[in-house]
């Protein structure tokens, strides 16, 4: 240790703005305020979490009500199907969405009776 070390220690420890005994705030006061802050933060976090959970629940219920209800699947009973002479689709879900009129919608075939080198055009 050199002389400057002792001087530094002396200056830094005894400076007037360093902590004098009367200036240090009581530990209990500071600690109590810190505990209160932590408790308030926890309360706030819980409140925000509760609000967020409630909002999420409301959103889930709302979205689920908007979605169309799905039709229940019905499976064909193989025995019944084999012993029957007629069959209908057990549910509309298995039917094609578009039912077309075979007379009205089938395109008219182009007919030609002219030939070109032995081949019908």
């Amino acid at each position: 240790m050199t002389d400057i070390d002792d001087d530094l220690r002396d200056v830094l420890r005894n400076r007037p703005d360093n902590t004098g005994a009367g200036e240090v705030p009581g530990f209990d006061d500071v600690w109590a305020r810190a505990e209160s802050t932590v408790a308030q933060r926890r309360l706030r976090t819980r409140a925000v979490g509760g609000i967020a959970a409630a909002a999420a629940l409301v959103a889930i219920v709302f979205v689920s009500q908007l979605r169309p209800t799905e039709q229940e699947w019905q499976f064909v009973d193989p025995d019944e199907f084999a012993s029957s002479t007629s069959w209908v689709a057990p549910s509309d879900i298995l039917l094609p969405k578009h039912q077309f009129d075979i007379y009205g919608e089938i395109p008219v075939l182009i007919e030609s009776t002219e030939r070109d080198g032995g081949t019908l055009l």
Partner: protein
Amino acid sequence: MRDSDVLDNNPHVSRSALEAMHGQVFGWALSRCDFQQAVAEDLVQQAYVELLAGKARFDGKSSLKTFVFAVVQNLSRNRYRRIAIRLRLLEKAGTESGPDVTQAVEPGENENLWKAVQRLPARQRDIIELVFCRDMTIEEASTVMGVTTGTGRVHYDRAKKALRGRLEND
């Protein structure tokens, strides 16, 4: 360390251990904020909040004192960052406002040495304060400052050289 003393979110920290070093922690906080009593009190309270909430978790890698000093150091850095952002915003808005800095009172004796310490760059001043005023080793002081021991040693040596040079010139 009494079991009831131990913090819920920090099993290696006890209330009584913090109480024992409260004065020193407050002194360190004071020097981090231009010796403004209210701000220092706020910094110490925030440090306790971080410890209570478990956001600053002590795992026993250093001494508790080093750890708590480092927490205060980080909080004061964040505070200065916030102040700097606010000042930049005020400058942008065209408002004239300066930082509210309280001048430290200078001691009568060894005035030259005190002035020389105050003129040191921030890191050198910090390590000198931690070593000579807070009884820390260079290694502990480096941990508080968030630098390697080698870097801390360089700051320490430079600070001592600068102080010697200035005292010889005066």
